[in-house]
């Protein structure tokens, strides 16, 4: 089995009855860095939340061959790390340490083990000083790194980044891209973005979403086609 994620004919309706995902299908191979492109409002975030089983969709999603359902959510979610577009949506505990330890604690890992893992993750990201700060007082780029730490702490096989570079200045963006690139060889990575440049830079394969439908699936080379980009509001 080499498919990390398989999405088969997934539908999702917003509470107000508009269709967010309209029969989306694609698959991501293990170890791939996969891009989901599309303009604002094309359904990218919704699709990512469906993959984690947070939103109740119609259709079928498999993670490493196992069907996403309410029963096996325990083992599946443990294997997925999710980085939200806006760090303020992701961080809800009083200190950075408590935010990062939230996941491990839920899975019953011992406190001293958690402490060691967190030291390690923070060190790798170069943010060990933040540990006892409140994330509320950090800069946008710093918060983003804390979010990556919360995603990495359980050492998942799959990492999902929702619009990772949005609102970041060029330097922080480059720094973040470096982090993602350094993870590329170890993880299966799913990235949503509206920036063709980012997809060209790091994605092995992409799909393009428009109004909840997949309008392209394949290699990122299509992102040099100006006409295609304009038609799908990506340029």
């Amino acid at each position, binding site marked *: 089995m080499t498919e990390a994620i398989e999405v088969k004919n997934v539908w999702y309706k*917003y*509470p*107000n*009855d*508009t269709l*967010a995902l309209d029969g989306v299908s694609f698959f991501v191979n293990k170890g791939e860095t996969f891009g989901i492109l599309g303009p604002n409002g094309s359904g990218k975030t*919704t699709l990512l*939340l469906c993959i*984690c089983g*947070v939103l109740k969709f119609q259709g079928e999603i498999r993670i490493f061959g196992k069907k996403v359902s309410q029963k096996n*959510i*325990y083992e599946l*979610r*443990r294997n*997925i790390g*999710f980085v*939200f577009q*806006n760090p*303020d*949506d*992701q*961080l*809800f*505990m*009083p200190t950075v340490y408590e935010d990062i330890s*939230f*996941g491990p604690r*839920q*899975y019953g890992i011992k406190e001293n083990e958690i402490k060691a893992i967190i030291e390690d993750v923070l060190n790798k990201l170069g943010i060990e000083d933040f540990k006892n700060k409140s994330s*509320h007082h950090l800069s946008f780029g710093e918060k983003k790194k804390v979010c990556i730490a*919360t995603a990495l702490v*359980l050492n998942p096989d799959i990492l999902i980044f929702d619009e990772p570079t949005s609102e970041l200045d060029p330097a922080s963006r480059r720094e973040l891209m470096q982090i993602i690139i350094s993870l590329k060889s170890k993880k299966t990575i799913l990235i949503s973005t509206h920036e063709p440049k980012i997809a060209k830079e790091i994605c092995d394969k992409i799909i393009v979403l428009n109004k909840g439908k997949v309008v392209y699936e394949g290699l990122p080379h299509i992102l040099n086609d100006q006409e295609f980009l304009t038609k799908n509001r990506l340029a």
Partner: protein
Amino acid sequence: MKHSFFDKYSYINSPVHKINPVLKLILFLSIGILLNIIPFQIVTYILIGSVTLVITYLSKVPLIFILKRTLVILPFVFVIALTNFFSKLSESTVLYKTFLNAYIMITLLILLTQTTKFPEMLKSLSYLRVPKLILVLLSFIYRYFFILIDEAEKMIYSAKIRTYKRLKIRTIGAMIGVLFIKTYDRSERVYWSMLLRGFDGKIK
């Protein structure tokens, strides 16, 4: 995330939608008072019941939507039924009358709000001399409810992705605390934006 509007059926067109909202509100209140005063008679209820049905039909608001929303009266009906069962103090007609009154009133209230756009509702409330501060608070709730629920929902998703258990009261409580901090920060930015458009403490 796109949430459905509270007043989502107020955007369709029907004869009931065209009635002046102030008139609708006054009619609603009069029926409420009338139902309280009149003695319990089957004929009167058949009459008022059929009028309600006709308005429901004309308004084009889906019946299933109305039926679902009327369920909120049940706990109260239950308490009264309990009294009825255990004590001889109240007669069964009290139960029937209360149930019918409550049912008619809630149906009419659903129809009133689902056939009036919220901004129009605000206008009629200001016409009825509801204080400005209350109107300002109502419009802020209407505007920021969806933004705050989005923020809350995303925090809940972010926690759910990192656990398989039901969220603990402690976790959700902390989230509401964080939500208030975000609320304060947001209100500060909104205040600046109001200042920049000439706000001097009084909304004109």
